[in-house]
């Protein structure tokens, strides 16, 4: 028996870290979720009309796009990558979908075409990163410019109105009862569905497991027979697909194609993921965290607006939240 008191010491040390680890995890969830509640409470008290069904539903609607983008970028960040092309892909896919609809393609097919365009952008990102071995930052930075350029070129930089029925997805809702309860908008339903589906993929499916493995230790993953390249490509395709979804939703909401829109949106998505505990070093992150992160940004934006703070003020506050969220996260993990 190799059981000496040494192993006991090890075990004691191990147990101590475990207890700490477990409570830390619970604490993390509690703190981030608590932050949402506190923010919500603060604005409910300070801002008139914040705590009404109407504004809550509008908050959910506003947050849905950040959440969708955030979930996509979370996948790429967990693989220790990044996707900077999201904003451009949103503009491009919206434009493509609207142009298809204008050309007479049935609305739902034109929307599928938009999604497909997003998938293609993600695939190209993935191939640049895995085949040409470019750093994700560079590959997606390049794609950010290229895709934006294509969107501007094919439209001559003009916004075009879409057929009226194109606007249903972004503007309609279910359970609409009247001014008191304007219903749950489709984008919010889509957000909820996407969050559950991608949470399931990340936590319960092989591809999710591989995503973590690649980000945690790429070489170990490769030597375990995981096809690292494929896993990364899938992550970028997810990001492209969800950016495409946001592109369609936004185009539908405005019932126009706007090739100049969504500039810099990827940064909001990254902020949401990071506030939600995703590590840019890879291997760490959850869909739930990113959803919470998006809502923290959303509540701040809506709440500050209703308090009369201008856009510049909001930017300052959200920037500080990003900085301190990560700072406190590091403080806790260092202990």
């Amino acid at each position, binding site marked *: 028996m*190799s059981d*000496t*008191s*040494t*192993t006991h*010491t*090890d*075990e*004691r*040390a*191990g*147990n*101590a*870290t*475990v*207890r*700490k*680890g477990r409570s830390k995890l619970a604490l993390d969830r509690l703190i981030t979720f608590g932050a949402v509640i506190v923010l919500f409470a603060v604005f409910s008290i300070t801002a008139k009309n914040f705590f009404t069904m109407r504004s809550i539903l509008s908050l959910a609607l506003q947050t849905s796009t950040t959440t969708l983008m955030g979930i996509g970028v979370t996948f790429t960040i967990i693989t220790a990558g990044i996707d900077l092309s999201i904003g451009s892909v949103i503009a491009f896919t919206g434009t493509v979908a609207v142009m298809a609809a204008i050309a007479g393609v049935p609305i739902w097919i034109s929307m599928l075409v938009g999604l497909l365009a997003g998938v293609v952008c993600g695939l190209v990102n993935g191939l640049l990163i895995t085949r040409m071995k470019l750093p994700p930052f560079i590959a997606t930075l390049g794609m950010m410019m290229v895709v934006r350029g294509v969107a501007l070129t094919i439209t001559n930089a003009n916004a075009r109105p879409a057929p009226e029925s194109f606007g249903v997805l972004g503007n309609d809702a279910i359970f609409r009862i009247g001014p008191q309860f304007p219903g749950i908008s489709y984008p919010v339903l889509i957000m909820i569905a996407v969050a559950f589906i991608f949470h399931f993929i990340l936590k*319960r*499916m*092989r*591809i999710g*497991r*591989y995503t*973590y*493995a690649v980000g*945690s*230790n790429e*070489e*170990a*993953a*490769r*030597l*375990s*027979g*995981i*096809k690292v390249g494929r896993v990364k490509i899938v992550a970028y395709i997810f990001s492209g697909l969800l950016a495409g979804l946001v592109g369609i939703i936004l185009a539908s909401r405005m019932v126009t194609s706007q090739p100049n829109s969504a500039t810099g949106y990827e940064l909001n998505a990254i902020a949401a993921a990071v506030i939600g505990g995703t590590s840019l070093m890879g*291997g*760490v992150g959850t869909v739930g965290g990113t959803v919470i992160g998006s809502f923290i940004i959303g509540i701040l934006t809506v709440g500050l607006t209703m308090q009369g703070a201008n856009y510049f003020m909001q930017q300052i506050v959200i920037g500080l939240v990003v900085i301190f969220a990560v700072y406190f996260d590091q403080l806790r993990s260092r202990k």
Partner: protein
Amino acid sequence: MPEVILQVEKVSKSFPGVKALDQVSFNLCKGEVHALVGENGAGKSTLMKILSGVHEADEGVIIYKGRPVRFQSSTQARDAGIGIIYQELNLIPHLSVAANIFIGREPLTRFGTLNEKKMNADAVAILARLNLRIDPTITLNRLPISKQQMVEIAKSLSFDSEVLIMDEPTSALTESEIDELFDVIHTLRDRGVAIIYISHRLEELKHIVDRISIFRDGRYVSTDPYAAISMEEIVSRMVGRKLENLFPPKRNVPTTEKILEVRNITRKGVLEDISFDLFKGEILGFAGLMGAGRSELARAIFGADPIDSGEVRIHGRRLSLLSPSDSIKAGIAYLSENRKLDGLAVKMQLAENVTMANVREVSRSFGVISRAQEMEACRKYVDDLNIRTPRLTQVVNNLSGGNQQKVVVAKWLFCDSKVLIFDEPTRGIDVGTKYAIYELIERLAREGVGIIMISSELSEILGMTDRVIVLHEGRLEATLITRNTTQEEILNYAAGLGASAIRESAIRTTHRTNERHGNE
């Protein structure tokens, strides 16, 4: 009586949940090499961190050069003359040797720009004190690891260190590089520097150590002149019980059934036309110096690195060798030398690591993982391999080195591997756990797995294997039957000297043995 330069009296240190050091006393004399040994968790590292100012002691006194000291930072300790060389080097790979030595205190010209000239000249002078000739302008990462380590030592010396702590300095060095390091250590000792030498490789202590102190479970056990204590005694004090043998009895019987056939593997500049067979139930050793191509050969067989020509067959079926996934499916497993770097995903859970190479096995349709099946499978290996963990969902980073190694083994057993390649399986693992790993390897062979064991420790090769393949500069020099060979024969083939040099080396060995006896 030599002058005592550093004295530790009844020092204790606790971390949440563990008492890392308990009333430890210890002293160090000027001009001595003092070995500090003990299993992982014995408290060596904690004591060193206290001496070098990284941690502060909870209680106890440290007397340095006659005065009690209490270092609050490693800078303070360094300025007082206590330097530490960590296992992982703390140098900047893209800067020159001189820039590394003088980082943070670069000599300046009158105009406030860097005085490269003076820096290079000073660096040469410091390196000369170690009898080293290294170009100070060369970029650090162009030097071999051993030379980089010398630079680290030189850097430490440039602070006029009187006490130098070396933590596992030989773990990344080859045999000949170790000799160079020992020369440097002798030079330092002769200049009056006191050296604390921490190592898991007890074998090497005999070349340099004057006194040896043993720690166990955070407590001080004993200090003796090295010549007055036997190896068996050291080991039994370290583990707190008698360790009868270093290796388990060999009960595995190699069969005549070929599992693995390797033919004409060539990778330009790395491997040259290598062929061999592995039999069911056999333990085959790969011996050779660092850079001989042992790991490269293993990685080629596993499909981890591309090859230019050659083929590998397992049970007669040819492997594609394009990526590890085909080799894994065919039943080959490679347990890499560096667990943390390319064996484990340390941020992930134990269970997730165990199933990593074969998640398919615990998946339902559409790639959905069954957590229940996964836990059940892991439970079996945790029990079977005696992995000490509080939970199956424990994050691997929080496990000890030996247990991490077992997790890697579990990962490959879960793939139902028929050929297991162990690359330096006991590196950085303490004596007690080593034995458990040896037992495991031997048991696997007995159960019919074919095993390839790469090791730099010849005692391990001799104690564990049935046959040895000796590599030299990417070529297969010899295939030897272990029980008919000797350490000298293996070393000669490893050095590329072939059979002709055996006689000559026998003379050298006698010489060395005499020297050793002289010490004792």
